[in-house]
């Protein structure tokens, strides 16, 4: 083999670019020269392959019967504040700043486990002991990037005080020019130049096409706002997440918005007390709602990301921490209602019994 340090090939990798690892916390290098920031939900980070890539537009389709899009917004905003990233929040409420009081606080879903048991188990697990430093290393690197959020505990003051947070009410103005100006001035703070990333911005817009807003009947204006937002994002180090109620829009405008999204998600309520579904899904009682992943951002590449499952159940672990799981189909007879079980992981199907092995 050739000596590792001598590069004989004419194809040499530009080391200086590769080694410029993110200096500020909350960033992760992705494929094709992209950089991820965390969604605030670890499971979602994992599913999306790292998080939301910088410069991408995330659209979330709301379900009028479920408020789960708010959870996605909350964790996204909290994660940014914990990593001290500037935030712009716009919503059709009179007092958008009040929403900051509902943001979840970082907590560790595993904290109570590792501290106590690790110390007394350390003696008995001698082989594993030497790997402990690796585990700790791994843990700290992950914690830099994303946190678990305790949905029941409001975000501590220290994360809010003195942080650059811009809140805009979409109710105030008759058109979107105010919101557009806010976004434009906000995004000029994070220009994308070379490989150095100085700071990251997060934009969260809630219920974008809400009928409460005066402009809600001007669809072309809303579309052109999103188009310009997307264009501005592409040249800045920021991520915007926009939730919108598709039922309030004409189908063609809704499809246009879906096309413009880099990452497209939708949330759905779970019908309460649905006997058929209860039989079909294990852990039906713990499931709060469903998250559908329609599109995963593909920046700088043409290859689509094929997920093993598109539908995930949203539940609260220990009633506090948001978790996403593939749907686990309980083994049932017949194939009725398979439309719910889009997951690829339902291996324990009763059908296999019919095969002669």
């Amino acid at each position, binding site marked *: 083999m050739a000596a590792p340090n001598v590069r004989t090939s004419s194809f040499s990798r530009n080391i200086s670019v590769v080694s410029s690892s993110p200096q500020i916390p909350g960033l992760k290098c992705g494929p094709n*020269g992209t950089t991820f920031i965390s969604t605030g939900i670890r499971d979602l980070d994992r599913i999306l392959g790292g998080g939301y890539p910088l410069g991408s537009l995330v659209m979330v389709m709301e379900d009028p019967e479920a408020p789960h899009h708010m959870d996605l917004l909350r964790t996204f905003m909290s994660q940014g504040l914990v990593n001290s990233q500037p935030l712009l929040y716009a919503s059709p409420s009179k007092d958008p700043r009040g929403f900051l009081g509902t943001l979840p606080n970082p907590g560790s879903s595993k904290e109570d486990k590792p501290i106590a048991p690790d110390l007394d188990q350390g003696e008995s697990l001698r082989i594993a002991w030497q790997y402990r430093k690796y585990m700790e290393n791994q843990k700290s690197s992950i914690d830099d990037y994303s946190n678990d959020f305790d949905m029941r505990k409001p975000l501590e003051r220290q994360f809010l005080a003195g942080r650059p947070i811009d809140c805009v009410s979409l109710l105030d103005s008759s058109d979107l020019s105010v919101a557009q100006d806010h976004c434009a001035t906000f995004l000029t703070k994070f220009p994308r130049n070379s490989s150095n990333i100085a700071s990251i911005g997060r934009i969260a817009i809630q219920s974008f096409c809400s009928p409460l807003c005066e402009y809600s009947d001007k669809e072309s204006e809303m579309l052109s706002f999103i188009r310009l937002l997307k264009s501005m994002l*592409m040249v800045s180090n920021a991520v915007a997440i926009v939730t919108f109620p598709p039922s309030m829009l004409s189908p063609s405008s809704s499809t246009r918005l*879906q*096309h413009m999204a880099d990452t497209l998600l939708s949330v759905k309520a779970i019908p309460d007390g649905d006997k058929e579904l209860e039989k079909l899904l294990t852990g039906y009682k713990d499931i709060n709602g469903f998250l559908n992943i*329609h599109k995963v951002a593909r920046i700088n*590449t*043409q290859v689509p990301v*094929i*997920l093993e499952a598109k539908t995930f159940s949203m539940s609260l672990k220990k009633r506090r921490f948001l978790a996403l799981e593939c749907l686990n189909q309980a083994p049932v007879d017949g194939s009725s209602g398979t439309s719910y079980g889009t997951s690829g992981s339902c291996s324990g199907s009763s059908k296999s019994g019919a095969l002669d092995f």
Partner: protein
Amino acid sequence: MDRSVNLLDLALGFDEPSPLRGKVVLIEDCVETSGSFVLHQMMKRVLSPHSSDALIFLAFARPFSHYDRVLRKLGCNLSTQKTNNRLVFVDMLMMKCSDGDDNVSGVAKLFREIQGTVRKLGNVTNRNITVMVDDMSLLEIAATNSNSDHVLDFLHYCHTLTCESNCSLVTLNHEDIYSSMERPAYLLQMVCLADIVIKAEPLASGLANDVHGQLTVVNKGMISSKSGKGSSRNKLQNFQFRIKENGIEYFYPGCSRS
């Protein structure tokens, strides 16, 4: 057979030089399956080192850096082509048509820019110029603050280029936007004018790792002059594809290699 010619190239007639001369190509896709990879492949074909063809690219959907990276993986360096004057990349991301008289001139200005570039590029003999629009629906949003006729006008003007200067026009549009409404005039015109319609759809059976979707190619007016077998090509072709970083695999349904 030349290994670099795949099923889509054959359907478009790329086994002969400059098959798209004076042709209008329409690519249609939907939310589930993006058709942008067809554009990438055609960009690569147009800018291939064996010809002197030139490309005018109107980017509404993605910045140059994106296309540069994607095409580099396909083996085509856009920056070099730019300096060689074979590629004119027009960044339309921030295009805005303000109200009033300026609105009229927004799209008209764009067309005059294209026309000027076509004249400038066209002085090389035997050069075919291709105009590509990577997202018509975004052009529509950008131009239709008051009136959707501007897009139709733009399209007509671009069509005159195909007759006048033997340019090719390649556009990408999202078909599913219009599925729930009466199709706007410009879209009907586009389908009518198009010589080749390429439609990208997801598989009916859902997402799969080794088959990313299917393409339907309708080639309306292709008569191969040399071989005389053109009549057999005048038809609808259907095949499936798998997108990879360095190229796209095409195969007939059921013939996936993996």
